[in-house]
């Protein structure tokens, strides 16, 4: 209980931020915060920069609250967090690449997103000319006579996003996996700067296409917090409806794809059909299969169509009619269980240390769900369970998804039953508190885990700076740990069970 509140007393509070406090600290308090992360008194939520200062988001144990700690960097450097707390490592390397703020004593000197191809160094900081033909990258090694390397990617064999995996293997057994990402870095943080609210919402919805609803919702909530804008109840319910539809579509797709990677194509075909039903329903209700650009600051851009309720009820009937049978097929197929049970085990301690969200965390004993805590409307009025398992293997990650499908179906039912009437968009001209509250943060539960958003508005209402943190930042490194000791042939299975976002972390 003490850590976050004790830390909060050590800095100067910035009044402009809502709904959780931000404090400005000196480098000693910054180090205290890093030590608190290392000792497990707090969990790292985000680590980013606006070009002038570095910001660290923390949550305490239980319901202790969220705190943002800011350290100004007039000398363009800050004490490394990663040296005490490894989950900060890639975030810190990203800050160095993009902003040119140097983490002092950072245990890894290699660039992360900067592959030496932009013709620029530090594009968001004091930019200077840089290489454009690529830089060599020294992978970590594993040495000894029987070991060999397997390089994979960036262009993979399937229809998936690009990234490089470097395996060191002893025969069939993976001794070490190292990921190299950044291939789909689009410079979204730089595009967000100076963007109008509308354009920024569109950009946020394209950070990771499979989570477009979650991202649009996170961005909208952060912008609304900054503007002090209240959202009509109908819009809140429609947003939750879209979010649960997105969760259903992705979980169906994932369960099927995991089974497919174990060569069990029957379930893949059935889950693919369920996913398609969800997307068609989304299109019928909101006019877009993935529901892109439907959630905007102030409410929802498209109210549900007349036939929407009927379509969704028929979707629920379809799911309830077929899903239980498919689940028992998964449960009773020994050849499939043989591939998923005890494969790719993620230790609970690692999930806790990294603050892994979503099914990755929940399959390894971490029960965090942003809908439950810190919570946001309308989930306080709806009843749902957060499934948790302890096994941490591929099978557990499948079961978490199965449980979440059941929960989401029940939630969709409740949302339809309680859907308020009235406007679906707030009056944007009435954001009266705008001049005094100019920064907002939010934490939204996407299908993959919690999406964090921070938005700072300029006086003209445009975005001064913004940052959206994908849940995969704290899941990708765990895949490297989970695969160790498994056979190379099980990597696709493990990878799919994590289903981390490339675009979301490459931004």
């Amino acid at each position, binding site marked *: 209980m003490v850590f976050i509140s004790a830390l909060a007393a050590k800095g100067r509070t910035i009044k402009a931020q809502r709904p959780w406090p931000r404090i400005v600290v000196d480098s000693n308090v910054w180090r205290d915060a890093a030590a608190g992360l290392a000792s497990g008194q707090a969990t790292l939520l985000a680590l980013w920069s606006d070009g002038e200062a570095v910001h660290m988001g923390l949550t305490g144990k239980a319901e202790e609250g969220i705190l943002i700690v800011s350290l100004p960097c007039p000398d363009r450097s800050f004490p490394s967090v990663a040296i005490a707390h490894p989950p900060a490592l890639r975030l810190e390397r990203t800050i160095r690449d993009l902003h040119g703020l140097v983490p002092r004593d950072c245990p890894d000197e290699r660039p992360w*997103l900067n*592959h030496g*191809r*932009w*013709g*620029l160094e530090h*594009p968001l900081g004091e930019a200077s000319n840089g290489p*454009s033909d*690529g830089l060599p990258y020294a992978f970590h090694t594993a040495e000894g006579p029987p070991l060999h390397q397997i390089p994979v990617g*960036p*262009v993979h*064999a*399937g*229809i*998936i*996003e*690009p990234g490089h995996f470097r395996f060191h293997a002893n025969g069939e057994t993976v001794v070490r996996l190292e990921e190299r990402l*950044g*291939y*789909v*870095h*689009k*410079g*979204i943080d*730089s*595009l967000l700067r100076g963007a109008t609210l509308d*354009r920024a919402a*569109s*950009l946020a919805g*394209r*950070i*990771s*296409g*499979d989570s*477009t609803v979650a991202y649009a919702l996170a961005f909208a909530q952060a912008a609304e917090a900054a503007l002090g804008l209240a959202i009509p109840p109908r819009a809140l319910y429609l947003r939750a409806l879209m979010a649960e539809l997105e969760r259903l579509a992705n979980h169906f*797709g994932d369960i099927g794809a995991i089974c497919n990677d174990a060569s069990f194509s*029957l379930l893949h*075909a059935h889950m*693919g*059909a369920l*996913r*398609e039903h969800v*997307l068609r329903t989304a299109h019928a209700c909101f006019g877009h*299969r*993935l529901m*892109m650009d439907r959630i905007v600051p102030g409410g929802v851009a498209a109210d549900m169509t007349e036939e929407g309720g009927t379509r969704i009820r028929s979707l629920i009937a379809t799911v309830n009619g077929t899903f239980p*049978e*498919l689940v028992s*097929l998964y449960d*009773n*197929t020994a050849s499939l269980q043989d591939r998923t049970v005890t494969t790719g085990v993620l230790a609970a301690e690692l999930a806790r240390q990294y603050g892994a969200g979503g099914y990755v965390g929940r399959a390894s004993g971490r029960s965090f769900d942003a809908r439950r805590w810190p919570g946001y409307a309308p989930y306080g009025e709806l009843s749902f369970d957060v499934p948790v398992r302890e096994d941490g293997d591929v099978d557990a990650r499948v079961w978490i998804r199965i449980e979440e499908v059941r929960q989401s179906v029940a939630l969709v039912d409740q949302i339809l039953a309680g859907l308020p009437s009235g406007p679906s968009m707030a009056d944007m001209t009435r954001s009266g508190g705008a001049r005094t509250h100019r920064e907002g943060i939010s934490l939204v539960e996407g299908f993959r885990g919690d999406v964090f958003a921070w938005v700072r508005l300029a006086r003209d209402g445009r975005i001064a700076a913004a940052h959206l943190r994908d849940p995969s930042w704290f899941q990708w490194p765990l895949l490297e740990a989970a695969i160790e000791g498994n056979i190379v042939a099980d990597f696709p299975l493990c990878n799919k069970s994590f289903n981390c*976002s*490339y*675009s979301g972390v*490459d931004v």
Partner: protein
Amino acid sequence: MRKLLFKNLLSPPLTEPAPEADDLALAQLARSFDDAARRALGRSLSIRHVDAGSCNGCELEIHALSNVFYDLERFGLRFVASPRHADVLLVTGPVTHNMREALARTYNATPSPKWVVSVGTCALDGGIFADSYACVGGVSKIVPVDLHIRGCPPSPMALLQGLIALVERSASAA
């Protein structure tokens, strides 16, 4: 499982009827196919997908082409694991600088005759990411593009119409 298979055997298929080839796509493709290529390929094309910076939205809809509703393989189109086996590169994304070389190398690894289909708004000209320091801004700036399929992301039906136009052009006289 037997019960489920038996039930599926008796229930009607979910697969959609084949759509007409997209007229716009046919027009775009008119110049891309000579007689030699048609003789070599017939009605079958192998497709290699390359994500050159997409948000992953296009990939989801390309995936959907293989589900039971769209069943891409009935048209003689199939996805292959290597560019060495491909006739067509299906490229998504605004082309990030970090993917520039990988895209060019994938193109060079694909044997001729070959075609490039760019997919999605940002593959055309960079779309919403066009002004970024990190993006080249369109597939055609790196490799020659024969057909563009619009949409953010294009629906599976739009993708199907474009790809069917490609098969028809490859199989029929100009």
